[in-house]
């Protein structure tokens, strides 16, 4: 019966991960609203709890208790499957991030590849959600999100390849060890810039949030969603932002490496710094147009990341 126990333990771990991501989302949404308010000279939410600190908890309780509305002509199976396929991969992608010592779910020997591959499944969910809603805005949002994701995946992957070349390993734990002296942001500054910008596009953040541009698409792929299913989209967005930032910290900022403090604190500090920049950009830059977004990916980032890859390879060859 021991393997049934292992299986149950795995399920329990999954539930714990989901809970942590839920709490993380609550904290991130509040931070985003507060930071955004400061940037725009406002105070943000103030009424629920001291300094409005319980606002997102109240919002979440409200969302879970809301009625689950489904459009009459929607495809029931795909409509339900969409949010799940968006949220689950976003949470799964956290499995290979080493939070220091034993705090890693799985040290895969292809961890970096895993991190690039698994969030790709969210596109299937977005497309399904957009199609199943039986609504033009949702449908266009779904199509846009997949086009955007596929386009920005390529330069992002090529930027990560330079890190893998330098470290000589696809394991996330080995990456940490390889950066014990110099973090890769010093050696590969261009790769870091490409990774940071394309990651914003991958997680649909402003200025790359055309799949849910409210000025033209109401709310994009999640127009018809409400209640808990809508909350799942939100959860996925913030889990994605966290995962992309944590992975950026791991790839370029040395992850949990640092003096005095334990590794998990360092990783969270570095991740928070990257997430803060993401929030900062959101309240500073306007949204791209769909054609500008595509042109940026294919005519600027793709050649740039290819040149960066060749350059990194040449420099490595010269130094070695």
């Amino acid at each position: 019966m021991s393997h049934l126990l292992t299986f149950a333990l795995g399920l329990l771990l999954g539930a714990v991960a989901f809970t942590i991501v839920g709490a993380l989302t609550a904290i991130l949404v509040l931070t985003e609203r507060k930071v955004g308010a400061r940037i725009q000279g406002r105070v943000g939410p103030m009424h629920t709890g001291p300094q409005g600190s319980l606002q997102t908890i109240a919002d979440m309780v409200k969302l879970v208790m809301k009625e689950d509305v489904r459009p009459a002509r929607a495809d029931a199976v795909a409509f339900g499957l969409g949010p799940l396929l968006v949220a689950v991969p976003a949470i799964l992608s956290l499995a290979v991030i080493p939070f220091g010592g034993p705090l890693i779910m799985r040290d895969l020997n292809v961890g970096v590849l895993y991190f690039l591959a698994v969030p790709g499944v969210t596109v299937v969910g977005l497309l399904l959600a957009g199609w199943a809603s039986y609504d033009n805005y949702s449908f266009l949002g779904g199509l846009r999100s997949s086009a955007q994701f596929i386009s920005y995946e390529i330069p992002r992957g090529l930027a990560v390849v330079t890190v893998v070349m330098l470290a000589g390993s696809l394991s996330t734990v080995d990456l940490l060890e390889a950066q014990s002296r110099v973090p890769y942001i010093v050696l590969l500054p261009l790769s870091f810039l490409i990774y940071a910008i394309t990651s914003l596009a991958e997680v649909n953040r402003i200025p790359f949030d055309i799949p849910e541009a409210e000025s033209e698409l109401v709310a994009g792929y999640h127009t018809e969603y409400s209640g808990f299913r809508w909350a799942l989209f939100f959860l996925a967005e913030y889990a994605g932002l966290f995962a992309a930032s944590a992975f950026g910290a791991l790839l370029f900022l040395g992850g949990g490496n640092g003096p005095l403090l334990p590794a998990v604190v360092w990783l969270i500090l570095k991740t928070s710094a990257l997430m803060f920049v993401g929030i900062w950009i959101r309240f500073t830059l306007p949204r791209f147009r769909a054609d500008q977004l595509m042109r940026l990916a294919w005519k600027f980032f793709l050649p740039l990341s290819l040149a960066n890859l060749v350059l990194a390879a040449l420099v490595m060859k010269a130094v070695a």
Partner: protein
Amino acid sequence: MSLQDSLFAGFGLIAVVGALYAVITRSLLRAIVALGAFLTAVAGEFYLLSADFVAVVQIFVYVGGILVLMLFALMLSASGVRHPLAAIDRPGLGAVLAYAIGGGLVWASWTAGTFVPAELPEDAVGALGRALLGTQLGPFELIGVILLASVIAALSIARREQP
């Protein structure tokens, strides 16, 4: 039965049910979703057989790439809600072909014996990379040429439709 065996059987069941549903259902959208379940289950089997790299690439290329492309094609073509199997004009020939291929696969896997997870060699991914850029360089580059040709073909088809 060990945990690995039961998980292997579970993934196998998902794969078989997904594959069957993909062929049986009348809705093309559901067929694609079922195909996604099948592809993911096969990735799980690869992982259980210690082929981590193949498992992740299966998700990367097939679920994150091919499946998205299929959905994209379905959604951009207005007519595509009917299952393509409903449009086959010579079902007899198709059935013979399908049984021949299916029977061959069953025979091949039957004679290959039971599955045993391979001992993972030291630095398996590195060895794979060296093989792809060393002894297998010719086929590897050929695949690149085929992909380039298909991109150019797609571009020329897309361009022709513009006024």
